[in-house]
């Protein structure tokens, strides 16, 4: 499924765990693994890096990509150049207040990568397969692709749970009460819409004809993007899968977060971004 996998490597405390996680995923997909290191290339660093890698218990073949400059930009550039189709990064569950607006390396990669990305929230030196897949979808060709990609992944992991979530929200809905006196009428309208959504979600998933891992569908009412990711968090998903945001996300999208930005702001679990 992924020929070339890239890992953004740093000498951080989680670096060794990330190496092991990346090794597991690369073995699972039988892919070639590239380690991307940002910094000047000299003998001292090379020695340190080799030490670090052998310390981690990493045993597979790999290739190191050296780049210097702005980390996020260089990682994205290198992964495009080496035709990397899956990029693995580690990230904090939440960023500090200032960093959230400025953007960390991991967040920049999530927002801008042109390939699939796996974001690991708490990598372990003894990595375990993902067993609980939670997938957020839209009724679009992109949403379909996300489900299919995640499903193939789930099949390889021999997952136990595959939950497809669609959230929907009607902005300004309660304001109709100002004119509509009846609370019941409004609630009935909403319930009717929700039933409609549930039916459509079932039909949508049915259309995909997926077999192997049992599928559950869930339709939720609430802010789009947040409701699904919160559902994944509450049910302690192993990995939460979303479609990569269509346009480029900018500062304005962080000030007024919507959809994927809610997930990036506060990671519910490990994350797979499908493009």
């Amino acid at each position, binding site marked *: 499924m992924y020929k070339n996998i890239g890992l953004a490597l740093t000498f951080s405390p989680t670096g060794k765990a990330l190496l092991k996680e990346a090794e597991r995923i690369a073995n699972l997909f039988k892919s070639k693994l590239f380690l991307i290191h940002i910094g000047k290339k000299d003998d001292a660093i090379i020695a340190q890096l080799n030490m670090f890698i052998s310390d981690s218990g990493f045993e597979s073949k790999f290739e190191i990509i050296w780049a210097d400059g702005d980390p996020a930009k260089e990682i994205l550039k290198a992964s495009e150049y080496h035709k990397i189709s899956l990029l693995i990064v580690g990230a904090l569950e939440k960023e500090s*207040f200032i960093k959230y*607006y400025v953007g960390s390396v991991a967040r920049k990669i999530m927002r801008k990568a042109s390939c699939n990305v796996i974001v690991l929230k708490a990598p372990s030196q003894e990595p375990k397969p993902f067993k609980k897949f939670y997938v957020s979808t839209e*009724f*679009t*060709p992109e*949403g*379909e692709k996300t489900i299919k990609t995640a499903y193939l992944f789930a099949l390889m992991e021999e997952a136990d749970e595959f939950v497809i979530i669609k959230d*929907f929200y*009607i*902005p*300004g*809905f*309660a*304001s*109709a*009460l*100002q*004119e*509509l*006196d009846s*609370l019941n009428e*409004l*609630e009935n*309208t*909403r319930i009717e*819409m929700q039933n*409609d959504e549930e*039916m*459509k979600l079932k*039909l*949508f998933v*049915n*259309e995909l*004809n997926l077999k192997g891992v049992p599928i559950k569908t869930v339709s939720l*009412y*609430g*802010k789009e993007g*947040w*409701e699904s990711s*919160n559902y994944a968090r509450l049910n302690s998903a192993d990995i939460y899968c979303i479609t990569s945001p269509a*346009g480029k996300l900018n500062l*304005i*999208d962080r*000030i*007024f*977060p*919507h*959809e994927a930005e*809610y997930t990036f702001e506060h990671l519910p679990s490990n994350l797979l971004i499908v493009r």
Partner: protein
Amino acid sequence: MQMSAQQIAVFLLSISIMLFAAKFFGEILNKLKQPAIVGEMLAGIILGPTIFGYLIPGFSETFFPQSGLIKIALDGITTLAVVMLLLVSGLEVDLSMVIKQGRAAITTSVLGIIIPFVIGFAAAYYSPDLFHAPDNNRIFLFALFTGTALSISALPVIAKTLVDLNIFKTPVGLTIISAAMFNDVIGWLIFSIILSMMDVSHSIFNFMQTSALIFAFIVILFFVGRKIINRILPYLQTKISYPGGVLNFIFILGFLGAAFTEYIGVHAIFGAFLVGIAIGDSVHLKEHTREVVQQFVNNIFAPLFFVSIGLRVNFITNFDPVLTIVVLILSFLGKIIGCTFGAKITGFSKREALMIGFGMNSRGAMEIILGILALQVGLISEAFFVALVSMALLTSLTSGPVINALLKDKKTKQLFNFLSPKNIIFTDILSKDELIYHLIEHTPNKINKKEVLSKVMEREEAIPTGIANYLAIPHARVNIDKPIIICAVNKIGLPFSAFDETLSRIIFLLLTPENKNELQLQLLADISKKFQSREKVEQLFELDTPEKFYSALKKL
């Protein structure tokens, strides 16, 4: 100075009369399928100087005096009411939604502000006498106000229209609602600037200081305040009584914001509105809480406010037909041209763009609030105010019916846009494959039938498309622009492996464009929903012409 027991009794009695009259007329108008606000305004007009004041002069003077302690108390209540109204309006403004909808909503909204604004400004600036401008030294401000008054849109009326017509989740509905939200924010921003420019002499801050303070307020509220609110809300919902604690919190913050903006020389409502937006943005604010707050404000405080307007102004002596007609023409023209044009250039069809234009045209409560505030500070005359109120009500009354007329078929949704009697055929075919082949023969000649056949059969083999109650929907996504639906009513049942293990006799062939997943789902859902009752479906078999079948299907 204290109110005597008798004055307190009269005051309480006044409030109860106002509430009763508002509800009474509001309900009547609701029964007539018209906005309740029209009834509430009517109640005020009847109780106030316009009708009762004329017929029974003693009544108005006793219960709604124009001066004295009772008036001060009543004014206090209406100020409270208008602050609350703006707070709950803010709660429903979802700026993330506007950003998400992006170009279409913002272009529609901006053009829907600029065009009516320019028209209103020019008209008022060059012929202030027509508008009865009260103060010739403030023509510029007056013209600014007139522009703003023509460019505002009202979210509640629009939301209700969309609920009634069930088009909330369509691209048209989402564009209207997001554009209206953006419009609201810009409208109130311009209006507060006008008000702060007016008040320079009374305020402790000058215009520049006020602007700096309001800017700082917005930045802090949206960068820091929102995050804090988002942290506090879940805590309140679990630790303090729900929804009481949350309601309390919303109003405490709302009044704080209102007090601050009033203090710095911008009207209190602007602070309440901004705080409302910041709270409404939180993902933790439950829909139930929103509804409870709306119910509370809309059943008690909003009616008091709208009745009080009729009590203040005589709607007959101040009615200037020429001015009213001019205001009506300018407002309809400006808003509809602006929004329709904006929607058209962002890719909507002519019909959809017109729906958006008329949807955005309703002014409702927001216009009336804007007008009464301008009247209070002496910026406009009573005659202009009456014209604005007439315009607000008329635009609200017309937007629903016009959108409805522009929608081809409202209740039956998408399905009947693509199905017609000539696509319904009666067949007597013995096998499933042959029936599908026959259905495809009936599709228009321009499509590639071979490709369609292979796709439909492929889908059929993967998962059979029998549903239940004699229904089957073989379908595929193929290379076409518009959905094609052909319906066959077969003499005998055929095996489509339906869930309820019945044989299928009514078979819809559904072909949809390749990249439109949602449309396909909607049509599948629409058709399936028609076949909920087995008995009713069995009655369809009796019908012998496509026309009869078509209209019976519509009624299912």
